[in-house]
């Protein structure tokens, strides 16, 4: 009994450690990647004992700055909600990771550990519920600040969330129809099959349209450019105008956390999660007949590495997109959500259903 508790604590501790550090690391990636794209050098002026380490210490300097800054609550603001809002934001972004499987079953002695913090049967629903709840932090921040610009940002966030949440949800239905499960662990396991022994049965191959709709809608959910209308730094500064210190830092952190959530979800749903091509639980089985057997530890580690690499590549691509595309105009944003992505997602569901009914028996 106590061992179960320890294992769960270790798993959740590991996920929290990895995710929060990755989010901190994102500040560095954002600075340096944008610098390289724009032929600059990027932040490199926070040396520790003369070591600049390519500006890596700027994240630490940022944290020190955020924690030591004065925390200002506007005079007429709602003190309780103003304080709670950033916590809501970060909390819902963090708990999403509980349902993400980052590796297959690890066997220690006679104990089987699933590398997933919480094994939820309807994990997919849970993840999207938590993602949607995240917008409450934004709305509360806008509302509690008693600032017209902040409210404007909050309202924009709300409208944007509603528009894109639907496209997001509908795009996932296709995936659920193909793999016939809502459990993310099972969904990843189902992607371990192959088509004709050669091609991995990943979501990107079975649901390419859903993938594009998902990525677009999910990027809109992260509230980062080109969908940063709630923030819109150059016009309304956004829902966190009235925040300073670490409370602002938490909104900032949420942005990065949500990027990571989206990257991880895209990996899980469309790129086979921890699946490595041709790797079965006992080793590699190549379609040309070769075999290379590995132990359970190596298998799990390879799976985790595969999951991490795919997620990191997604984060890199998302960062590149963020520094490539200009912000949408508000009506363009709405049109893209309602008239573009939503119909495409619906058509995708219908086509998927037809294909499954016609060719479903063959599989």
């Amino acid at each position, binding site marked *: 009994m106590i061992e179960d508790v320890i294992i769960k604590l270790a798993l959740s501790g590991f996920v929290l450690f990895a995710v929060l550090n990755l989010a901190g690391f994102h500040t560095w990636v954002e600075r340096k*990647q944008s*610098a*390289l*794209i*724009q*032929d*600059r*050098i990027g932040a490199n002026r926070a040396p520790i004992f003369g070591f600049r380490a390519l500006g890596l210490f700027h994240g630490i300097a940022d944290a020190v700055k955020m924690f030591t800054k004065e925390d200002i609550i506007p005079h007429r603001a709602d003190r309780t909600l103003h304080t709670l809002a950033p916590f809501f934001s970060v909390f819902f972004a963090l708990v999403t990771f509980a349902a993400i499987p980052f590796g297959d079953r690890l066997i220690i002695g006679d104990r089987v550990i699933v590398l997933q913090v919480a094994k939820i049967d309807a994990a997919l629903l849970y993840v999207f519920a938590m993602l949607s709840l995240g917008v409450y932090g934004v709305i509360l921040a806008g509302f509690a600040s008693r600032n017209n610009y902040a409210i404007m940002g909050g309202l924009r966030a709300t409208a944007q969330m509603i528009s894109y949440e639907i496209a997001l949800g509908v795009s996932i239905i296709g995936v659920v129809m193909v793999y016939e499960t809502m459990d993310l662990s099972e969904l990843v396991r189902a992607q371990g099959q192959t088509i004709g022994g050669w091609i991995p049965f990943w979501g990107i191959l079975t649901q390419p349209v859903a993938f*594009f709709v998902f990525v677009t809608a999910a990027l809109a959910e992260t509230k980062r450019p080109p969908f940063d209308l709630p923030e819109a730094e150059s016009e309304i500064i956004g829902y966190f105008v009235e925040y300073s210190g670490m409370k602002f830092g938490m909104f900032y952190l949420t942005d990065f956390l949500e990027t990571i959530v989206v990257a991880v979800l895209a990996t899980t749903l469309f790129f086979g999660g921890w699946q490595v091509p041709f790797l079965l639980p006992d080793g590699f089985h190549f379609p040309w007949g070769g075999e290379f057997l590995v132990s359970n530890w190596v298998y799990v580690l390879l799976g985790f590495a595969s999951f991490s690499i795919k997620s990191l590549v997604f984060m890199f691509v998302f960062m*590149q*997109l963020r*520094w*490539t*595309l200009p912000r949408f105009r508000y009506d363009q944003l709405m049109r*893209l959500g309602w008239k573009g992505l939503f119909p495409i997602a619906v058509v995708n569901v219908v086509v998927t259903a037809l294909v499954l009914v016609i060719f479903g028996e063959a599989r």
Partner: protein
Amino acid sequence: MATIVVRRPELTFWEKLYIPQIASGLKITFRHFFRNLLLHTVHLMGYLKHLPASATIQYPEELRPLMSRFRSRHRLTVREDNTPRCVGCMLCETVCPAKCITIVPGEHPDAHIEKYPVRFDIDLGVCVYCGYCVEVCPEDAIRMDTGILDLASYSREAMKLDIHELMDPGLRKPLSDCSLKFPHKCELTGGEVKGSWAAVDGV
């Protein structure tokens, strides 16, 4: 009134799809990213230094190259015996539109030179860097070619340069001791005339 119909170019279906445009944008950013990443890495190993990986000039360590006609902090040119070339003709003080130059001329022992500045102050907090003083000088005694741009200081007093700093652009306030041998007035002597021409001749 005639109506002008402006026809805006309509987007083709291909352009309305967004995706090709996004792809072409990504192509540019990815090209810059990987080119610069590669160049930075190669620079670390010491190769291809002539290909710049960034347009950044790292300011306090690197300075932007200045044009030869750029007007920077003033200096007074000197003769071989380390006395100022200035003959105290007051042309620069007269032409200065900001009235930032203060000259007190004194008699020079050499009859061919006639005068020299006992005191020569420029208040950089007032100077507009027009360069008229350089243009007007008949003796090429004042120039604005030191290349010194970082003139910020914590007080207005520190912006006032006297003859020490003007003759030696390397000097910065606060000055420690007075090294000029010819008779001159400066803050270090408390407004008194210090030095003698005999000391200059003795060198």
